[in-house]
């Protein structure tokens, strides 16, 4: 059974038809990367799946259970998670409170001690206001929140934007580790190198439609990057 399945998903901003019949099946333990030019609808896709988009049509299922009609908070409690660069932390809560606020939404959260074993970088900042941390540290707090709720599908919207290369590598490692523990990951990222390094499959979104998909190797060898994104060099 697919962890997340979209069938003919459409999303609108007023009269603008942003997503136009998107189909996608995301299997547990896989990382699916979505790439595309600015304005292709990548962020709208994640917001529509999460329930943050006002007008959405089509079918959405999480492990076979329909998500349609559920508010974003109910989708989150069902196991869907969204990490977005414009909403990383509750700034005035401490790192610990950020994690506790998430842990309290589920019956059996991952104990915070175990979260700190995965992300030990947060230990020195545990009692600090999350808003005082660097962007990279805040992103780690966001990952910690999603670890503690044992999310089953994690969607990441530009998780490395504006972050130092060392943090980008670290986020890549944690995402890989999550996928190894059977979390399904949907990654929207401008950082093509990272996307190709950690994705099992890659979809190219153009003008609200998936126009191509394949393994990273297939995408590169087929010349699809150059055709759809204007990128000539294959990522290393």
């Amino acid at each position, binding site marked *: 059974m697919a962890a997340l399945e979209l069938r003919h998903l459409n999303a609108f901003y007023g009269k603008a038809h942003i997503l136009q019949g998107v189909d996608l099946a995301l299997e547990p333990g896989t990382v699916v990367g979505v790439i595309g030019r600015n304005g292709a609808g990548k962020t709208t896709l994640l917001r529509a799946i*999460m329930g943050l988009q006002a007008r959405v049509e089509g079918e959405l299922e999480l492990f076979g259970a329909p998500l349609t009609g559920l*508010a*974003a*908070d109910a989708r*989150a409690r069902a196991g869907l998670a969204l990490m977005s660069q414009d909403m990383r932390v*509750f700034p005035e*809560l401490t790192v610990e409170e950020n994690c506790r*606020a*998430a842990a309290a*939404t589920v019956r059996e959260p991952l104990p915070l001690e175990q979260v700190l074993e995965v992300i030990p970088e947060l230990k020195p900042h545990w009692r600090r206001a999350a808003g005082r941390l660097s962007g990279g540290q805040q992103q780690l707090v966001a990952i910690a929140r999603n670890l503690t709720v044992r999310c089953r599908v994690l969607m990441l919207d530009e998780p490395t934007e504006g972050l130092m290369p060392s943090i980008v590598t670290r986020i890549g490692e944690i995402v890989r580790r999550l996928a190894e523990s059977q979390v399904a990951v949907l990654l929207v990222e401008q950082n093509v190198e990272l996307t190709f390094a950690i994705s099992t499959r890659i979809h190219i979104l153009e003008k609200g439609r998936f126009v191509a998909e394949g393994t990273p190797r297939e995408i590169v060898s087929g010349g699809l990057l150059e055709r759809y994104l204007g990128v000539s060099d294959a990522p290393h």
Partner: protein
Amino acid sequence: MAFDQILFELLNGVVWGLILSIIALGLGLIYGLMGIINLAHGSLYMAGAMCAALLINRAGLDFWLVLPIAAVAVGLLTLALNTAIFERVLHRDPAVGLLATAGVFLTLDNTVLALAGADPQSVMPPIFDVLEFAGIYYPVYRLVAAGIALLTLIAVALFLRFTRYGLWMRAVPQARDLAAVTGIPILKVNAITAALAGLTAGLAGALATPISGAHFQMGLSVIAACFIVVVIGGMGNLWGAVVVAIALGLIRGLYSTVLSPTWSEVAAFSTLLCVIYFKPNGIFGRR
């Protein structure tokens, strides 16, 4: 003016400030969490006072039994208002919330007028004793009322600090979309907030009844004071409003030693309004 009179007025100011602070706390909670400026909040205070006065004077119930009944009744009333009104105006133009709650305020005040009449209701204090110290005789009930208000503030602070819903109530105003994608049940958090705000306003009304009596329009004077302390405390800063409410009580108490009650109120509000000139975002405002 003699020291004993100054002390008496200052104590009155602190008592009034503490009662005002638990009303302002509720107003601040609803604004902070839902972004709604609740014009009907003074009417909730009035509803608590009238509920207490009628249950004591007409049903003959004991004051200490009536106190929690009035608080819970107004809490439930606010919960109903949340479902019927607040949730409908969330995320809309703030003017819609203002107009809707103005409608609630007029409805509540006039319903009480129709049911209980325009005559002020007076209630005997449940404690008649006076405390003699520093040359003054001070009514014990007022000190007890101030103590209950203070305990209420502490209880709310502990609730916000140590409970799941308290944590969520602090989280949601900081990042609403993040709260939703974190799985925080926002509608439930809104409902608990509304109930808590109503509970504290109702409790304040019932506590104030033996001191000031009850009247269908008594919410008007309180709502004006609440708005001033919430704005000067710093919009959205809960504890800033509490501090300013107590300060307002003290300032009013000080002015009362040299001015008539009406002028002392004018002077106290004017003093606080001067703060806006220097700190437009309020004393503890962050924005």
